[in-house]
């Protein structure tokens, strides 16, 4: 009797990811698809993908998708969710999308306590446009627009958006995870599942920040990228639960 331990989740379409080798988007996509399957919410879920590398997420998630402009995911999701309060609406956004151009939309949706979920990919760079400095780029980290490394005097400091959002009364659950090892990936899935569950329970805004390797723009091997996250990136962006108010609701 053969037992299947692991296979492609049902709501991940049978398409080859366009992502680079070792990119964390693929892992995170799979986790989201697994969670949607396990919670049995595919026929009432709507994904709002970003502009950025994950702009083509609609090619992968086998659910309804409504595309947003760069940074506007939280606003589009707000509109969808307010009209369809019993559907599960989530945005999938990168760090430039969330923490730079869409900061206002993000903070205010969170502050209104919109009952939506955000998967926030933090890879410290603008991937799709070719590796420019992101709001989350580490101090000293090289990018195409900080060729000598991020200099706080010139470029400011890495923005810890999740910690900022945790200060808002409207946010219920915020956790930072990474996808650098099987153990971390399992924790990441647990967090994503909890975030969706919070929306299903109508508790309010939930967010999972995923520290995600970008080997191409970091100019590192995939294995070294994971190590780099564990050793350096987590110093600025420590993983763990940042806020969990779900028990008090």
């Amino acid at each position, binding site marked *: *009797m*053969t*037992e*299947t*331990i*692991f*296979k*492609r*989740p049902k709501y*991940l379409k049978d398409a*080859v*990811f366009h*992502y*680079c*080798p*070792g*990119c*964390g*988007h*693929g*892992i995170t996509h*799979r986790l989201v698809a697994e969670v949607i399957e396990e919670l049995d919410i595919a026929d009432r879920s709507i994904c709002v993908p970003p502009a950025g590398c994950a702009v083509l997420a609609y090619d992968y998630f086998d659910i309804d998708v409504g595309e947003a402009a760069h940074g506007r995911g939280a606003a589009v999701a707000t509109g969808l969710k307010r009209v369809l309060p019993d559907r599960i609406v989530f945005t999938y956004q990168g760090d430039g999308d969330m923490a730079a151009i869409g900061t206002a939309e993000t903070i205010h949706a969170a502050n209104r306590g919109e009952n939506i979920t955000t998967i926030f990919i933090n890879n410290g760079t603008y991937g799709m446009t070719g590796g420019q400095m992101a709001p989350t780029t580490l101090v000293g980290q090289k990018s195409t627009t900080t060729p000598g490394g991020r200099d706080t005097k010139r470029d400011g400091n890495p923005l810890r958006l999740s910690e900022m959002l945790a200060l808002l009364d409207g946010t219920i659950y915020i956790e930072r995870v990474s*996808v650098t*090892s*099987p153990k971390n*990936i*399992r924790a990441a899935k647990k967090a994503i599942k909890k975030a969706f569950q919070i929306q299903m329970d109508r508790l309010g805004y939930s967010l999972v920040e995923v520290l995600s390797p970008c*080997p191409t723009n970091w100019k590192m*091997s*995939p*294995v070294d990228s*994971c190590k780099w996250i564990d050793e350096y990136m987590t110093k600025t962006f420590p993983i763990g639960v940042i806020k969990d108010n779900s028990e008090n609701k």
Partner: protein
Amino acid sequence: MADKNKGRIKINSELCKGCYLCISVCPKHIIAVSETLNHQGYYPSKSTDSSDDPKCTGCAMCATICPDVAIEVYRD
């Protein structure tokens, strides 16, 4: 005991992009780089588990970290 834990992985070599994260996490060191290119132009990972003395336990760590969902895991 050995029978109970017998695992098996199936790597879809056309989905694999050769990031080799699977190789880095396999506790039994039974995944290696293939010698032949796939259609995407990568040397995919392949299982080197032997049928005579299978070491795979079906722990699925390789599949868990695979960014391209190229690995399926079974237990017989």
